[in-house]
């Protein structure tokens, strides 16, 4: 049996940016420089995982692992939904793994160990009480890896140490995490990380000088900086422009290193969470960066501090005097699940007219029940007409709704995501993205597809 390994990788960074200077001003404190990425009001760990997954090569898998510290739902997983959105066969194992940033390390270990192809999705949102370290130095994003035969990246060795260090904690229902004094954390964490590095290099049977690139991931920037310094860092891939991505951090940083790597190189990955883990990876002789798609985070849109707080539910606006958002009825969803999740419409077998949503009788020729499914999530379209609805309820008004005509045929009317209302015009080119439509008071999250001005998905193609 040949060992499986990484066959493709991709990352997704949400489009919005929170300026640390604006946070400093809002809370009269020093929050440092630069900006962090912010998931839009209609994104969460699940939708960001979908975005990253859609940028991978799309090789068949029989296991999907979804790792996050901010699962959109508890008790019910998100992985099965993500798999349906990705139009993967239903006969797969789709599982959620979470609880801590270390879950992603566990997924990596498992994916390398499994005998069958796997997709690993690591996605996270970092936020906390206004002015907290997680708010200022955290960032939102997702990474995706596919594992299969003929890998471009293989696992050479892995070493771990588990420790009950209480560096951070969050109870169910808490808005964000709290942390212990990070000088104490650094004194505990740094030696653990350095010790596993020493062990893994030995196990791998290589010299420290054989290592071409290093990935260091730790929630405390102090810990990460100290480890990098000891390992003779200065590796520019570790100069993270936005912040710490939680469960997605090791994935986003590894993907960035892979997209600069060459054939036959050793890469050291070291992570500090609930102890420490270190891996030595090796790129294959046939390694090519073409298998990756890394979001460089360019083209961000600024979000104000107050909007950011409202999006995370840390500020509550007066709601309009309108009914609670419509909830998707579970039986209605299950009757149309190809449409609801994968954005699969139908095409008339008699005349070719496309129907979004699916219909039984063709609107064009009247033929009954001669429809064939047609997957529309990858189709590009353009705006035929649009409106900016300033009175509809939204966590981030105004709502922009457009009528989208697809280049390959078919029409759908939906909200526009990640859009500056001033940039919308008839003829604007768009692509489809999976987003949150609403969250009802009951907690039911209604997800569906929106259109976004053509941008990042095309980067990976």
């Amino acid at each position: 049996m040949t060992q499986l390994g990484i066959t493709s990788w991709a990352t997704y960074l949400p489009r919005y940016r929170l300026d640390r200077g604006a946070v400093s001003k809002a809370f009269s404190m020093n929050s440092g420089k630069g900006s962090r990425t912010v998931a839009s009001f209609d994104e969460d760990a699940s939708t960001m995982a979908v975005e990253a997954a859609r940028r991978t090569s799309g090789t068949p898998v029989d296991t999907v692992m979804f790792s996050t510290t901010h699962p959109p739902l508890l008790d019910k997983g998100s992985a099965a939904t993500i798999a349906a959105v990705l139009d993967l066969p239903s006969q797969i194992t789709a599982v959620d793994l979470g609880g801590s940033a270390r879950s992603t390390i566990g997924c990596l270990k498992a994916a390398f160990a499994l005998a069958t192809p796997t997709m690993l999705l690591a996605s996270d949102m970092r936020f906390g009480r206004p002015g907290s370290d997680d708010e200022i130095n955290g960032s939102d994003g997702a990474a995706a890896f596919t594992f299969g035969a003929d890998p471009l990246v293989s696992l050479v060795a892995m070493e771990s140490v588990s420790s009950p260090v209480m560096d951070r904690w969050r109870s169910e229902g808490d808005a964000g995490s709290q942390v212990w004094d990070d000088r104490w954390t650094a004194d505990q964490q740094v030696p653990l990380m350095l010790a596993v590095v020493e062990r893994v290099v030995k196990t791998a049977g290589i010299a420290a000088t054989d290592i071409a690139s290093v990935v260091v991931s730790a929630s405390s920037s102090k810990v990460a900086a100290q480890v990098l310094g000891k390992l003779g860092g200065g590796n520019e891939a570790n100069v993270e422009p936005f912040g710490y991505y939680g469960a997605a951090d090791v994935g986003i940083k590894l993907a960035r290193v892979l997209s600069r790597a060459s054939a036959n190189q050793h890469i050291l990955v070291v992570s500090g969470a609930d102890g420490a883990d270190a891996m030595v990876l090796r790129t294959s002789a046939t390694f090519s960066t073409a298998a990756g798609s890394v979001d460089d985070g360019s083209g961000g849109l600024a979000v104000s501090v107050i909007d950011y707080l409202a999006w995370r539910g840390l500020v509550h606006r007066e709601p309009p005097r309108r009914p609670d958002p419509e909830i998707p009825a579970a039986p209605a969803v299950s009757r149309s699940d190809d449409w609801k999740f994968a954005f699969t419409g139908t095409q008339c077998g008699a005349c070719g007219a496309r129907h979004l949503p699916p219909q039984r009788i063709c609107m064009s020729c009247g033929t009954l029940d001669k429809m064939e499914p047609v997957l529309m999530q990858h189709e590009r379209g353009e705006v035929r007409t649009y409106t900016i609805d300033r009175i509809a309820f939204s966590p981030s008004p105004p709502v922009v709704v457009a009528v989208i005509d697809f280049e390959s045929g078919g029409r759908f009317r939906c909200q526009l995501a990640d859009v500056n209302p001033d940039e919308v015009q008839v003829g604007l080119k768009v692509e489809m993205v999976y987003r949150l439509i609403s969250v009802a008071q009951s907690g039911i999250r209604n997800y569906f597809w929106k259109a976004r001005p053509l941008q990042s998905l095309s980067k990976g193609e």
Partner: protein
Amino acid sequence: MTMRNTTTQIAIVGMGCTKFGDHWDKSADDLLIEAVTSAVDSSKGLTLDDVDAFWLGTTVSGISGLVLSRPLKLKNKPVTRVENMCATGSDALRNACYAVASGACDVAMAVGVEKLKDSNMQGLVVPGAPTDGTTADMTAPAMFSLLVPAYMAKYGVSRDEIRHVMSHIASKNHGNGALNPRAHFQRAVSVDTITQAPKIAGDLNVFDCSGISDGSAAAIICRAEDAHKYTDSPLYIRALALSAGSDTGASDPNYDYTTFPEVAACAENAYAQAGVKDPSTEISMAEVHDCFTPTELVLMEDLGFSQRGEGWKDVLAGKFDLGGQLPVNPDGGLKSFGHPIGASGLRMMFEMWLQFRGEAGDRQVKNPKLGLTHNLGGQPGGVVSFVSIVGNEPR
């Protein structure tokens, strides 16, 4: 498709209409009693007992015929509740007419009512069936604002020009409403004031939207041959047409958001019934469904009052002003008379009733020959549309 005129001619012999507005002090029952009583009083020698059957139009103010029989204390008369979105009032009238035409009854009443102001909600709230949650939720102004960019792009109209057209329509309807003691908003508003108001959805501002109001209206219907038993000035129904679209506009790339195809089809049918060849010269006045100003613009073309792409120029030329060639919404329309959903179609007919009897006061249209009412429900891409043609002579 066969859809023809009734073989028996129909007349309206009594009508009543409340003032529309914020009736904090009146219930739906109060409004119904007021409209029904004044309809009965407007005919001669007719009592409520003479009415054989009732059609009640309401969208959200109650369910079943009991909404009418309860306040009126009707004893075992047939009462049917009608709902067809914003065309509800017109469809109640249409069904009452067909009942009389069929010979099943001699005198029928159509009543419309809506009590919207008790809800503590902004805008209209219409409960719907559970769904899979995949249809984009939009407010009504947003839905109809989709007409504006599409019309501009198709006909090369600039944003300033379309704004001026919309403001002209709103100003005209506010001006007409200022002459109407039953209107919700009885105040003239200048084009400049309208143009400068902040936007609420697309290019629409608050002056581009119809009022949300409480109100009720009622009509008494009988065979044309019996009309003079009940009034000296009957209003004769010359055509009744209704079309429900297949609601595919939001998924059909062939739909271009500059027209309501259902309205054009419905108007064509009504004109055929009434023998109208050129509506722009043969129709003396029209009450149309101006839920939003771009709706009225597009309707001018769909109803054949303007050539395609020319409606905006006709609006600016004053063709549809009160003193123009074809006055549209002389009573102020939905814009200033207000829009209690179930009552609106019958309110339109009430203006025809007044105008053809010469009772429209300062907004009286001189010597009308044929009048048209147009009522629609839904949104661009999927509507139900109603058109009637009426006059003071039978066919």
